[in-house]
């Protein structure tokens, strides 16, 4: 098992932003009919979601989450941020990485490594590990990991399941060097043999290699997400549970010691079954999917912000597990100060990107 224990780095702040724009179950009933929607709700647990307005994208929400952190911690010198990672599958442009646009908007220094990571469900775990590792090995004081998607813009509006299931949101996590910080423990896993279980077939370079006739084969021409629901479910209840149990054995921790288990918010039925198999009390399983849907890489920090953002004081022992697209998955075990988890931001604000209009290119 690939594990790592990172010491001397603290989760100094955790924030998240979701659209103020709400899509309720009543609107879904009108669009798709009661039976179809009730069936989706029954298995996924989603009752309403937040969908970004047309002009708002994931980095807009990420910017607002990050600024919320800066406003709540007034004395942060932005030039001490030496790492900026944006984890998303819904970037601003194909090129350059959105992290650089956020680098501009957040007014960070040139002494900063900024780049994107293309991951979804496991994005928070991987983003945190990369940010912590880089921070440990660079001379800077702080790192910022921004993770999230506007998955609603990835899905087809005709697809009932995707329309209701995907919610938009982006989280921001500020990491700081601190000798007395609790350690953060990680494990990371991959299985590329099952890459086709969650895929958006059309739109990138593989689809450009096909002739029109070749594109008609199977789902090659399909430009929305496709999921093999049954196989992903068995992956969740078998492989993910196996990894979590193995991880706890490796780091010598008992499940009973945790204050909460936060899973990637993909499906309530699956999450409850995983919690049952992990033998953790149902009330320790944190849930945000009912009100926010599947929020991709942001789902774990968003769920923590949803549960603890308005609370004060104390520390929570957390077990966090992101799993899905890839197939990629990972686990974090760490203590977080509740005071460092900020209240949720609701906003439909967006950036007006005029830089490209006035540029001279040859």
């Amino acid at each position, binding site marked *: 098992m690939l594990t790592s224990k990172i010491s001397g780095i603290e989760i100094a702040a955790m924030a998240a932003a979701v659209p103020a724009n709400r899509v309720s179950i009543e609107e879904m009933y009108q669009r798709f009919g009661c039976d179809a929607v009730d069936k989706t709700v*029954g*298995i996924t647990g989603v009752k309403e979601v937040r969908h970004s307005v047309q002009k708002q994208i994931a980095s807009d929400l990420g910017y607002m989450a990050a600024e919320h952190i800066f406003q709540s911690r007034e004395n942060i010198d932005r030039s001490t941020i030496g790492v900026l990672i944006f984890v998303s599958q819904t970037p601003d442009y194909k090129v350059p990485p959105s992290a650089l646009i956020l680098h501009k908007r957040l007014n960070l220094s040139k002494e900063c490594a900024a780049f994107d990571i293309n991951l979804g469900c496991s994005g928070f775990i991987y983003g945190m590990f990369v940010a912590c590792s880089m921070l440990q090995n660079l001379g800077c004081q702080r790192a910022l990991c921004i993770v999230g998607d506007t998955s609603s813009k990835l899905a087809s509006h005709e697809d009932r399941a995707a329309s209701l299931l995907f919610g938009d949101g982006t989280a921001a996590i500020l990491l700081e060097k601190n000798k007395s910080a609790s350690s953060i423990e990680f494990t990371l896993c991959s299985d590329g043999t099952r890459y086709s279980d969650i895929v958006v077939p059309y739109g990138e370079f593989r689809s450009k290699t096909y002739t029109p006739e070749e594109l008609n084969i199977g789902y090659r021409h399909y430009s929305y997400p496709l999921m093999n629901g049954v*196989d992903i*479910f*068995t992956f969740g*209840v078998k492989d993910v549970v196996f990894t979590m149990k193995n991880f706890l054995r490796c780091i010598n921790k008992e499940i009973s010691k945790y204050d909460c288990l936060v899973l990637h918010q993909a499906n309530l*039925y699956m999450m409850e079954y995983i919690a049952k198999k992990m033998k953790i009390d149902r009330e320790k399983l944190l849930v945000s999917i009912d009100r926010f849907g599947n929020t991709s890489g942001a789902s774990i920090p968003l769920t923590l912000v949803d549960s603890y953002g308005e609370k004060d004081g104390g520390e929570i022992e957390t077990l966090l597990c992101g799993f899905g697209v890839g197939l990629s998955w990972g686990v974090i075990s760490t203590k977080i100060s509740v005071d460092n988890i900020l209240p949720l931001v609701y906003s439909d604000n967006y950036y007006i990107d005029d830089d490209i209009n006035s540029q001279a290119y040859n």
Partner: protein
Amino acid sequence: MDAKEKMKLLEDVLEVDQGSLRLDDRLDALDSWDSVSKLSLIVMIDDTFGKVITGNDIAKFQTIGDIIKIME
């Protein structure tokens, strides 16, 4: 576990009346054989028999009897 008990578990998963299923009933003729019941089936078999069946296993099931056969 005897055949009757196994059938009852399956009838619960498929949300049909007790005693209404026969071994040679075709799954594709059942209204309730859908993505939701497939997930419930995975959970029931794992819970009861300690094994997680796969999408491939499920794709091969044609009749109620095919499912009962693997319930051990």
